[in-house]
């Protein structure tokens, strides 16, 4: 029986974490204290049992769970129960959680997008790009006017009618100002640093390619479900306009977006 337990929810996925040490629990309690919407009293969809500083557990077939610098071994039973063993005393729980959650999200027709999400007039606008592309910068330039879902990782999940973007607890530099909110996706922008403002609407193939390049796919389960991710990405870019956005890190970028790119179209 593990000593600590905490329940929480990200993008409507309900988790229960049990651990033999308290660092992940402290992380989760701090998160829920700051963002109550991550709290969940619901029956968990996914249970994570986490053992720290385990060198070898008898009778347990150990397999490295992910290709990450952290030595996390374990198994995923029926896709619902993860038993993980960390060979160190401390590993960043947020990183492990993001990897596990990205595998489960695919089964719910969703994915984590390496993007900044901004909620404007009830709709979510996603700005995707690799590290250094300007996600945090574009969020910072809009702090006074709109809600920031995340400046680093947004969960995108298919609903009955459309795709919803959810805030995640996987922040970049703007952890203190992000909001635990969600909204239907209205447009996706792929950031390209440039010496002037400019945009180009992408056709379906180029939009799907850019989207796939920015979706978190970590771990063998993700690779096994790549066909499914492909179909979700393709469906999203058929429903939502996608643009390549060249920008300078200046506040006028938001005026440019509002003036030159009609919202959602």
């Amino acid at each position, binding site marked *: 029986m593990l000593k600590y337990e905490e329940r929480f929810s990200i993008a409507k996925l309900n988790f229960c974490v049990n651990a033999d040490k308290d660092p992940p629990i402290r992380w989760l309690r701090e998160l829920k204290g700051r963002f109550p919407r991550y709290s969940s009293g619901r029956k968990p969809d996914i249970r994570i049992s986490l053992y720290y500083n385990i060198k070898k557990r008898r009778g347990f077939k150990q397999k490295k769970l992910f290709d990450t610098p952290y030595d996390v071994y374990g198994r995923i039973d029926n896709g619902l129960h993860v038993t993980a063993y960390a060979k160190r005393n401390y590993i960043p729980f947020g990183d492990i959680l993001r990897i596990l959650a990205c595998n489960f999200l695919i089964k719910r027709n969703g994915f984590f997008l390496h993007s900044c999400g901004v909620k404007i007039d009830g709709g979510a606008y996603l700005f995707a790009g690799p590290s250094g592309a300007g996600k945090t910068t574009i969020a910072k330039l809009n702090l006074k006017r709109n809600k920031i879902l995340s400046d680093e990782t947004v969960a995108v999940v298919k609903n009955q009618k459309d795709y919803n973007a959810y805030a995640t607890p996987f922040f970049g530099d703007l952890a203190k100002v992000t909001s635990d909110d969600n909204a239907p996706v209205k447009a996706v922008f792929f950031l390209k640093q440039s010496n002037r403002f400019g945009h180009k609407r992408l*056709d379906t*193939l180029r939009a799907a*390619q850019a989207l*796939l390049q920015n979706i978190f*796919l970590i771990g063998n389960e993700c*690779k096994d479900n790549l066909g499914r991710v*492909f*179909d979700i990405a393709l469906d999203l870019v058929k429903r939502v306009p996608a643009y390549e956005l060249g920008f300078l890190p200046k506040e006028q970028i938001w005026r440019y977006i509002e003036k030159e790119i009609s919202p959602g179209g």
Partner: protein
Amino acid sequence: MAVYRKRNIPWRIIDGEALVVDPEKSLIYPFNAVAARVWQLIDGAKDTDEIAEMIFREFEAEKALIHADITDFIAQLKESELIEAR
């Protein structure tokens, strides 16, 4: 020798073009209309010459040029480990 697509390579035809994903190398290949058609024809039953012949019948271009281009393209696909010959 017939050429075939590796089983673990997801791909989709999109508006006549194709997107092919290599999960091992984390690479995404966009193919234009001709390349997409070649990709579809790599079904394990045809060899390079047969594929080139079919492309020649479907697309308007000089026969020798098509054969050279298709041979090159299929060699690149093999080198990229997206397809194999048997």
